[in-house]
């Protein structure tokens, strides 16, 4: 029983990280209807900006984090303006392919600027294990979980309670109707992309602090595909539940069935969810009154 609880806690902690990684995808998809394949590379880029400000320029981590957020906001807004708006009115597939291309360009550019070697962000998260009752959780897992949940929760509250958050959902629901109620739709789209890039930047910094940082860090992002499908591509609450469920299941599978099944289990769950609820557990189905 103790083993079960301990593995559960570790799994849930990892799930919090999945939720944060998935959040960036959900923001863009919810806000603009595009699946952004470059989200992982935006994550990686954020981590490199943090590395540069924190380690190379030697500034405090809080300043580095703020710089990362500002840079990511600007980068996301730039991507929206330079690439997405140029493709307005084109088939969705072209837009999605453009994000794939953007990801490749970012990966190459970062490799050119910062090099291919592994970097580390030591000492960012406290390593001292945290005890919950008698159960032990590794420090970095615990703190990355706390930070992830705080960011996801903040986004959730922002979407629900602020005028600009509601405007973003309105623009996602219908651009024409959003215009008609006075919403500056282009600005809101740029804001959505900027926010997704900033959230991705935070996720990238946390990931780099736990693992290592290379230009291939972004590849990890696609591993949250299972989270997105279980939770629903356009649901913030789904991101939390999906992340926790997948993290917990992976941990359980590793503990009881053996490590070789860890990576397979999420996709078994995905299959089951898709059979029962094609929109994901929390995904939106169009409301149609007849």
């Amino acid at each position, binding site marked *: 029983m103790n083993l079960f609880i301990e593995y559960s806690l570790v799994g849930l902690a990892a799930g919090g990280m999945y939720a944060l990684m998935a959040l960036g995808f959900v923001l863009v998809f919810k806000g603009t209807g595009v699946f952004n394949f470059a989200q992982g590379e935006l994550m990686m880029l954020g981590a490199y900006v943090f590395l540069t400000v924190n380690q190379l320029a030697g500034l405090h981590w809080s300043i580095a984090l703020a710089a990362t957020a500002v840079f990511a906001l600007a980068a996301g807004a730039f991507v929206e303006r330079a690439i997405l708006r140029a493709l307005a009115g084109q088939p969705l597939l072209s837009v999605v392919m453009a994000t794939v291309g953007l990801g490749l360009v970012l990966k190459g550019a970062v490799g050119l600027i910062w090099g291919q070697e592994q970097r580390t962000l030591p000492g960012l998260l406290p390593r001292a294990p945290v005890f919950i009752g008698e159960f032990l959780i590794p420090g970095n897992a615990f703190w990355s979980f706390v930070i992830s949940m705080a960011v996801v929760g903040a986004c959730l509250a922002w979407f629900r309670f602020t005028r600009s958050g509601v*405007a973003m959902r309105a623009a996602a629901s219908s651009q024409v109707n959003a215009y008609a109620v006075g919403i500056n739709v282009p600005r809101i789209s740029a804001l959505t992309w900027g926010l997704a890039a900033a959230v991705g930047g935070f996720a990238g910094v946390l990931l780099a602090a736990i693992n290592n940082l290379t230009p291939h860090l972004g590849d990890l992002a696609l591993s949250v595909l299972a989270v997105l499908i279980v939770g629903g591509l356009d649901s913030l609450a789904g991101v939390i539940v999906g992340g926790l469920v997948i993290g917990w299941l992976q941990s359980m599978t590793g503990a009881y069935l053996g490590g070789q099944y860890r990576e397979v289990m999420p996709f078994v769950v995905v299959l089951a969810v898709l059979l029962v609820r094609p929109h994901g557990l929390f995904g939106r189905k169009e409301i149609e009154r007849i």
Partner: protein
Amino acid sequence: MANALEVTALDVVYGGTLQVLRGLSLAVPEGRVVTLLGSNGAGKTTTLKAITGLLPLEHGEIAGGQVRFAGADTTRLAPHLLARRGLFHVREGRQLFTDMTVEENLIAACNALGTRHPAPPDFEEVYGFFPRLKERARQVCGYLSGGEQQMLAIGRALVAKPRVILFDEPSLGLAPKVVAEIFGIIRRINAATGVAMLIVEQNARVALAHADYGYILESGAIMLEGEAARLATNPDVKNFYLGGAEGGRRSFRDVKHYRGAKRWLN
């Protein structure tokens, strides 16, 4: 009285080839209720979209003419800027954000306040006119009845504290009893807030009964205009838009024969 909204010689073209409006002119005086009547495809909705800047989103374009709102030239202004200046468009078929709650729809409409009213939104005015919306404030609006959805669409306009509201077929898809209720409230809103209104309708009887002035649109141009009460007694209007003429019922054959010769077209 000064005109809140003035449209002069408006030409609208879709896709660069299809001309929908031909030299359309109309005016909405401050605080008055004006109706624009016409059959399917006459160009009523296009007129509203041209006024509120939504045309470019649908490959339409203002090829000529001018729209003046509140004394300024607003032709081709971006739609959200027009909404923020106080020109609010209640679109055809309600067009709510169906997956959001009633209250969230009202919050979204606060964007139309722009910087005119930075204070936090107070929806008491809306709930005063529509007590049923208050009961349903936290419900997802996609599940409301058609009448309640129309109330919410009007409520969103109220939140924006506009100078002119454009209604596109508020009677669409509603039972006659609900239509009467909605138009009654529209009139009360006009009396209470002094907001001017332009109501596009196919239901000419209801629209003329509630408006001060009316225009009749055919094939993209105004064919007839006048005080609503006078229009309602005009024999042609009666015949073609109110479903009957003086002298009791006519046979279908007479009507068909008559269709070819509308008097104002001669």
